[in-house]
């Protein structure tokens, strides 16, 4: 049964939910549909929500749409894996290819605040060389941005989210102190450290977007461990509780439960968006349209918006829209230890090693990966054991009963861009009457070689830390990117270095789909940094 915020509009009538107060409201400015606003933004996640804030603060008129609900975490979130599926994008999608992707909980959110409402908060910077993978490391493609520029925006985002991180970070160019002190490590994190020490590589506390000290109305993290099902205490610094309250204060309007189905164009320019809200299709006029629906919904919307001017979809003169879909490898090694670890306590990843993002020697593949300690909740863990190890019956029940002694390490690994990995439209329709996306994905040889190296290395680390009965979980992916790639050349990219479409000058993309490559770190900090950068570029351009 859909809950109330999934059925009843919360934003409107001059107010939006106050995410810090049960039943509370904050004022919200509203714009008429016939009023041509400066920016219509589709999606309020890491890209769209951040951008809405920065553009509103720069004085632009902004309306941001999200198909998802406007939650007040304190009143709406349960500590429950099943109930909290309401945060995921569970609309119909078809998956194929030789490694069909598992979507939903794994990689797609549908909430005001986007996937950051249920993300795991790991907040990492790209290795500088990974922005120039082609010219510096000989694979993939280059980003049309300079790492020093990104470094400045990383500073801004880390401060906006009060990232809790280590005093000094072992890898890459020097960076300032993290705004908040690192969280204490749980036993699972200590096992990562022990293994890394034994193998002679660096590790550190994971920089996390959850509070280690109070901030305004938000309390510090209480180590309840339900982060990927949504944080009911507001310690998590999601877009919902950071950028969006700022956006509202600066005069942005947010429309919840508003599914954008088509972008209108006239004479080669975008004129506004058609969206379904409260049972009716509506139209919002806008001077600029920004698409920020993440790497499946962004190309889907641009493809669905095909018209006589742009028969192959908007921003698709290169033919690359929807192509070069990337995920990240999320394979793991697990084992059993005598200690009671109880990895359900605390954020799932409290320690990390980025060694293999920065070390290129000793690899028979391109790209980098990091690995982190783990803390799966019961359903997730049961699916890992049943799926990854083929356990069922009493064997599954008995193994589940030893969960408090399990330790694991999980990689976040770089997948290369391949044109055949892509999003297209199927001929089925979803509950909105819109074509269901088809997601085609296959791993290549480079990925298989990286998986082999990474799982072996993580297995050795567990062995060195004293874990027995080890096994490898070989089938998991996370994060999305790449389907509206940014670049210097209109023939090989969808958007230009300012994230503006090459074909339609007032149509922009601001989310994970602009990534030319994904590197070996979780993407959200980079998406937010790109959004801040885009806001500054827009100020210069518009």
């Amino acid at each position, binding site marked *: 049964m859909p809950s109330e915020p999934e059925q009843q509009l919360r934003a409107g009538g001059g107010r939006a939910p106050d995410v810090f107060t049960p039943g509370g409201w904050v004022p919200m400015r509203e714009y008429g549909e016939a009023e041509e606003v400066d920016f219509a933004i589709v999606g309020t996640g890491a890209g769209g929500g951040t951008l809405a804030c920065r553009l509103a603060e720069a004085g632009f008129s902004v309306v941001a749409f999200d198909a998802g609900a406007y939650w007040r975490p304190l009143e709406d979130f349960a500590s429950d894996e099943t109930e909290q599926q309401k945060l*995921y994008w569970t609309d119909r999608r078809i*998956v194929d290819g030789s490694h069909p992707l598992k979507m939903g909980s794994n990689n797609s959110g549908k909430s005001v605040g986007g996937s950051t409402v249920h993300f795991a908060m790991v907040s990492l910077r790209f290795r500088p060389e990974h922005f120039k993978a082609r010219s510096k490391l000989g694979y993939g493609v280059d980003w049309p941005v300079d790492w020093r520029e990104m470094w400045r925006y990383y500073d801004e985002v880390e401060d906006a989210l009060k990232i809790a991180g280590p005093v000094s970070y072992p890898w890459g160019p020097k960076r300032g102190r993290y705004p908040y002190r690192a969280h204490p490590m749980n036993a699972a994190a200590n096992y990562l450290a022990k293994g890394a020490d034994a193998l002679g590589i660096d590790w550190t506390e994971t920089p996390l977007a959850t509070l280690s000290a109070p901030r305004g109305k938000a309390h510090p993290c209480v180590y309840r461990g339900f982060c990927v099902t949504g944080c009911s205490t507001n310690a998590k610094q999601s877009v919902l509780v950071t950028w969006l309250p700022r956006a509202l204060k600066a005069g942005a309007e947010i429309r919840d439960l508003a599914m954008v189905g088509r972008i209108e164009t006239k004479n080669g320019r975008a004129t506004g968006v058609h969206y379904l809200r409260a049972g009716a299709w509506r139209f919002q006029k806008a001077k600029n349209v920004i698409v920020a629906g993440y790497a499946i919904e962004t190309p889907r919307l641009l493809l669905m918006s095909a018209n006589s001017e742009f028969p192959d979809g908007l921003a698709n003169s290169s033919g690359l829209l929807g192509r070069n879909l990337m995920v990240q490898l999320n394979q793991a090694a697990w084992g059993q230890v005598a200690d009671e670890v109880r990895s359900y306590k605390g954020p799932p990843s409290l320690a990390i090693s980025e060694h293999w993002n920065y070390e290129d020697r000793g690899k028979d593949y391109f790209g980098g990966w990091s690995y982190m300690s783990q803390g799966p909740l019961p359903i997730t863990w049961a699916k890992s054991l049943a799926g990854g190890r083929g356990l069922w019956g009493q064997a599954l029940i008995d193994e589940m009963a030893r969960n408090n002694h399990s330790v694991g390490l999980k990689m976040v690994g770089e997948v290369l861009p391949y044109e055949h990995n892509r999003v297209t439209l199927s001929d089925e329709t979803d509950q909105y009457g819109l074509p269901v996306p088809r997601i085609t994905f296959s791993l290549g040889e480079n990925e298989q070689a990286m998986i082999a190296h990474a799982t072996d290395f993580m297995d050795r680390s567990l062995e060195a830390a004293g874990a027995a009965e080890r096994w490898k979980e070989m089938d998991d992916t996370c994060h999305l990117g790449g389907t509206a790639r940014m670049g210097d050349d209109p023939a090989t990219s969808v958007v230009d270095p300012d994230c503006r479409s090459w074909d339609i000058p007032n149509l922009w993309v601001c989310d994970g789909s602009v990534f030319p490559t994904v590197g070996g770190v979780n993407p959200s900090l980079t998406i937010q940094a790109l959004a801040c950068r885009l806001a500054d570029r827009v100020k210069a351009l518009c």
Partner: protein
Amino acid sequence: MADRFPDYHVLAKRDTASWNAQTGAVVDARLAKDPPEGVLSDRQRQTLARVIDRIVPQPEHRPPVNTLALVMGKIAANGSDGFRHHQLPETRRAWERGLDAVDAEACVRHGSGFAFLSDDQADAVLCAVEKGEVEAPEWQDLPAGLFWSWRLIPDIVSAYYAHPSAWSAMGFGGPASPRGYVRLQANRRDPWEAAERDDQAPSPAEARNHHAE
């Protein structure tokens, strides 16, 4: 196997600071769920009940898990997880056809419906489905291995491990909000966490698990 967490009950924390009202409400509603009417034939339902018995046996000495009701609820809602393997139909159709095929496979191999097989026979049929080594013609348009790994296993396992009895049996702390945890190090336990059976310990786990408030 003996219960590793004797006398530990996640539900005993229902009215403590570990459970906010929202969590209490959703778990109460789940525990009260009965199998819905108007979905699956009697025969399919019997097959599903038996499959569930074999995949996730009930915990001993604990209130039973209503896995059947939860899985049938998902089938009735034709619930989407946000992705569908291109070779499988949607949830409801996949289950209807899959259960018919499991039943047919039992008939081919053992000459009787799945619900009436011995434990060993039932497990042999399930192994065949898991490996995709099936004989019944009902599998023609439904790849057995995919039905197993994309539908049967995730749906059943997710339903079972959504239940407090299953959480208690694995020593999981259960819902935790607004109160979380204080002691994060190895071998340290907050008073409201499960104590594991340990014959060397000065006091038995049963006794330590009585402070679960």
